[in-house]
């Protein structure tokens, strides 16, 4: 007897709860789309400039770590009143001190060491072969480092 009652109760509850269980609702879509669009509006950085910044960051950081260059993410995020530039780098391996020194030396001599260029070539090969799959697997295995690159407070808004 008691079971019938709880069954009945749960059925009714289920009915009233249905409306709350929508997963991707219009409101969340709107919020997310707006956040992205406002990030772009608020900063004066054009996509080309962002791409250039990304490229230079990769060059600099490659000196110290081996990373998944394609999975690197560079985004603006808002935290309250502050805008932050978030850089997420899937790290494959940190480089040895000797490697870094070597790279530095070779750069100062204006020559690239054979090791580095080999590595880069093989990287590029695998990337062109199978793009998306490669990205995902590497991303999962790789450590994610998040660095807050720049915090521009309301300056961004004022600049506009």
């Amino acid at each position, binding site marked *: 007897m008691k079971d019938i009652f709880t069954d009945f109760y749960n059925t009714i509850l289920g009915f009233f709860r249905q409306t*709350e269980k929508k997963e991707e609702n*219009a409101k969340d879509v709107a919020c997310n789309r707006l956040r992205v669009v*406002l990030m772009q*509006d608020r900063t004066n950085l054009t996509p080309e400039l962002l791409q250039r910044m990304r490229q230079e960051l990769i060059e600099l950081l490659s000196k110290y770590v081996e990373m998944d260059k394609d999975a690197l993410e560079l985004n603006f995020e808002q935290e309250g009143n502050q805008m932050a530039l978030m850089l997420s780098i899937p790290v494959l391996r940190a480089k040895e001190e000797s490697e870094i020194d070597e790279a530095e030396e070779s750069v100062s001599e204006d020559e690239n060491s054979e090791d580095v260029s080999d590595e880069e070539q093989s990287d590029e090969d695998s990337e062109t072969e199978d793009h998306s799959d490669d990205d995902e697997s590497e991303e999962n295995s790789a450590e994610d480092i998040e660095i807050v690159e720049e915090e521009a407070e309301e300056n961004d*808004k*004022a600049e506009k």
Partner: protein
Amino acid sequence: MPLCIEPIQSQSKEIKGETMSGRVIVITSGKGGVGKTTTNANIGTALARAGKKVVMIDTDLGLRNLDLLLGLENRIVYTIVDVVEERCKLKQALVKDKKNPNLCLLAAAQTRDKTAVTEEQLKNICEELKKDFDFILVDCPAGIEQGFQNAVAGASEAIVVTTPEMSAVRDADRIIGLLEAREEIKSYKLLLNRVRPNLIKSNDMMSVDDVVEILSADLIGIIPEDTGIITSTNKGEPIVNDDKSLAGKAYNNVARRIIGEDVPFLNLEEDNSMLGKVKRFFSGLMGKEK
């Protein structure tokens, strides 16, 4: 059940006015059709009803409408352009409201464009009016061009009107950026218009909290969507004069907050239909069980 229209108490820092005289507030939005002029007419009327001396300036040259919302369209003799071009004195151009002698309108010219009045001229008019009025409300045209720049020129406070729609929020963000860049604007508040509690409840519309968070601005009012606005516009009678209207109440509250009172936000969440009551009863049970 999450309360979408939960009042944001911490945001209710009011525009403080110690002297209570000559505050110039520009009402702006960026996007058109979100209710700037309706807001202007209602806040102005509510402030006048509260005993303040109020003048409203319509700066939407060529597209004036504030006179219609106030039912004053037949009384306009001189406009702001006549004042600027010295065809009349400033005081001659002020049209008194039918009901409330505390309320005046300085109408826009319908036959001229935005270039007829400059920033400097509008600033001077505001300075002049500050001497005789407690509040000068400037109705700003849509857009971010010269018309906006003119309207903002004489103001030291701003109310940014938006609705919980993407395009309106985006434009409001742009306006906020422009207001922050102007030194003369000391503070700005957000007024969220045309809020539809039912759509928010079903997660089909952004909630008040969402918009406030995205724009990270202080809130001065939440106005529910109200069909009464249409009839009140048709009659030329601001809805604040209707004591039964929820939107009217909300606008009255905005006026009180501008004056400096601490008024809680209306609870628009309450669903008083029979189904609403049943739902509340069951969600109450659910809450206890879990």
